């Protein structure tokens, strides 16, 4: 299908429900089970591209017209120009529809939505990034931003622990390889069980974090992953001396509007779409466990 680059920005006005048209530039399988793909999108309209401004941690509502809309964290960094990347696991209606598309197809995008990682707070501090499985998308955005934002010297040591069940399920393999080559970032990849040819860490993320033992002194940690991984990593962080104010995570809840109106993504009085998705553990402690 050839794309119709129909520009809608001129009459979009102040309608936050109206999607921008995006052209799929490139689709990459991220994992060898082919359930997770990255989509690089380009704005169909120049004016949209110029106006779009985001920070790592934010998300967008992507839509396949006629199928529906769903929220996805932005996986590319604002420092990467010319495209927006979303890494999407095939699960429901919209994600299945997205997986059936090919480069050149047009989809809708609303955003950027939500808050971002505490970039200002991270300045002058060590940054610890802990991720598990599929939940590494906005963490990729963060890491690239810290490394390539032209302000690397503003941050201290950057430590990354990233785990998946097996090597084939680790996403962003090229990025990981490139980061391993650098001396301004420490990357620890781990898989759950030994696998042929695997020379890096073996074990669950919490155990590797404990082993790597990043210093809590003057540090900020961001943890994203399956609930069980987060649950077992938090006590390790406490043991390492991290206070709950130093640890951030990103929540996911079912969403429709993404702008705090439709009433379904709330965790207690806070809406994941506008008050989050990034929350500190100190903030979450004040909220009920509704996620």
């Amino acid at each position, binding site marked *: 299908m050839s794309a119709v680059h129909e520009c809608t920005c001129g009459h979009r006005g102040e309608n936050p429900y109206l*999607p921008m048209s995006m052209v799929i530039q490139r689709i990459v399988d991220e994992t060898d089970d082919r359930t997770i793909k990255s989509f690089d999108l380009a704005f169909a309209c120049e004016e949209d591209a110029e106006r779009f401004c985001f920070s790592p941690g934010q998300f967008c509502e992507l839509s396949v017209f006629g199928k529906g809309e769903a929220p996805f964290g932005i996986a590319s960094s604002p420092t990467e120009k010319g495209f927006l990347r979303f890494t999407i696991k095939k699960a429901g209606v919209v994600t299945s529809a997205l997986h059936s598309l090919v480069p050149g197809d047009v989809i809708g995008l609303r955003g950027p939505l939500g808050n971002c990682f505490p970039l200002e707070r991270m300045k002058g501090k060590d940054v610890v990034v802990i991720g598990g499985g599929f939940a590494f998308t906005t963490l990729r955005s963060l890491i690239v931003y810290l490394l390539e934002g032209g302000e690397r010297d503003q941050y201290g040591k950057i430590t990354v622990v990233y785990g998946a069940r097996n090597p084939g399920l680790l996403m962003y393999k090229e990025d990981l390889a490139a980061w391993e080559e650098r001396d301004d970032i420490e990357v620890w990849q781990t898989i759950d069980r030994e696998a042929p040819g695997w020379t890096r860490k073996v074990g669950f993320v919490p155990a590797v974090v404990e082993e790597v033992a990043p210093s809590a002194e003057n540090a900020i940690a961001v943890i994203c992953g399956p609930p069980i991984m987060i649950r077992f990593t938090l006590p390790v962080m406490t043991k390492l001396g991290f206070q709950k104010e130093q640890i951030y995570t990103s929540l996911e809840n079912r969403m429709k509007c993404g702008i705090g109106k439709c009433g379904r993504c709330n965790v207690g009085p806070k809406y994941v779409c506008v008050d989050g998705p990034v929350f500190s553990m100190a903030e979450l402690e004040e909220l009920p466990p509704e996620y």
Partner: protein
Amino acid sequence: MEPFLFAKDQLSEFVAELMSRVRLYAPVPRDQELRFDEVKTPDEVVLDYRNTTKPPKMVLFPQTERMIAFAQEREHFNKVLQVPFDEQPKAILGLRPCDARSFLLFDKVFGAGKYIDPYYQARRKSTLILALACTHPRPTCFCHAFGSGPYDSEGADILMRDAGDAYLLEAVSEKGAALLEELGLAQADQAHLQKAAELEEAAYQKLVEIEPVEGIERDLEDLFESELWAEISEKCLACGTCTYNCPTCHCFTIEDRVLSGGGERVRSWDSCMYPYFTLHASGHNPRPDQASRWRQRVMHKFEYLPHNVGLYGCVGCGRCVVNCPVLLDIRQVLRRVRQERASKVES
């Protein structure tokens, strides 16, 4: 300024006058029920009524509304068409003060904050509210639990009061005053003012005794983990009757609907009572049972909204009480909340 007046037997002329200026919504008989709908003929408006089953929120927030349309070219939808906003001048005539106040909450949710909902806002800005004070509060009414009452003018542009054989009209907002100015109705005379005052007094006499709601948000703060929610929700059937008939409930879903030759993105009312409301694609559900859904309903209305926007998500119209198939009475739920809190404080 003295109120204006028109005789009840002149209602259809009054309606016709309004219809010549605005698209008018009022209680009219439709499909064997009385509901707020666009008035087609001046004599079909019914103002001698208690209240409608469906709330008038559907005028400003329709149950199903097209947000955008898609045009299809080749095999995929790839062209987004914006739907024009409804900015045509409108008025809602004869809604009860409780329902008029419900729009104040909508204004806080849809018409304020970082994002404005343009569909609601366009309708709201172009709609005049002519509320009709309530001469017959019912045993299930509890607007007065919120410090309001059957003659409350909050949220209205014009408040109408029953004066026996006539209605008195008084401007509440500038928009309302401007309309009254234009309509050139007669000034109310002493006899009708007197009659209206008597009816108002009688209406207040009909209010049943009820504990004020104020402060319940503090009572709820500690009750998230309470057993109370399982207890009160046990008989809940998980239907959407209470939420769909609620004048303040505003949660919605957005769906893409494919039609032959085109498609549309529509939003429709949704309900926190439905199990699928919060279900993740992974199968995980942060509100896995009816107890957690009832907790959300109560917390949203009586703790989160007061906390976030300063208004309760309830105006005391009693529709949820009357229409619940198992008579799960929100007033009783609030009483249980108070009791639970009191017993918690004691222990």
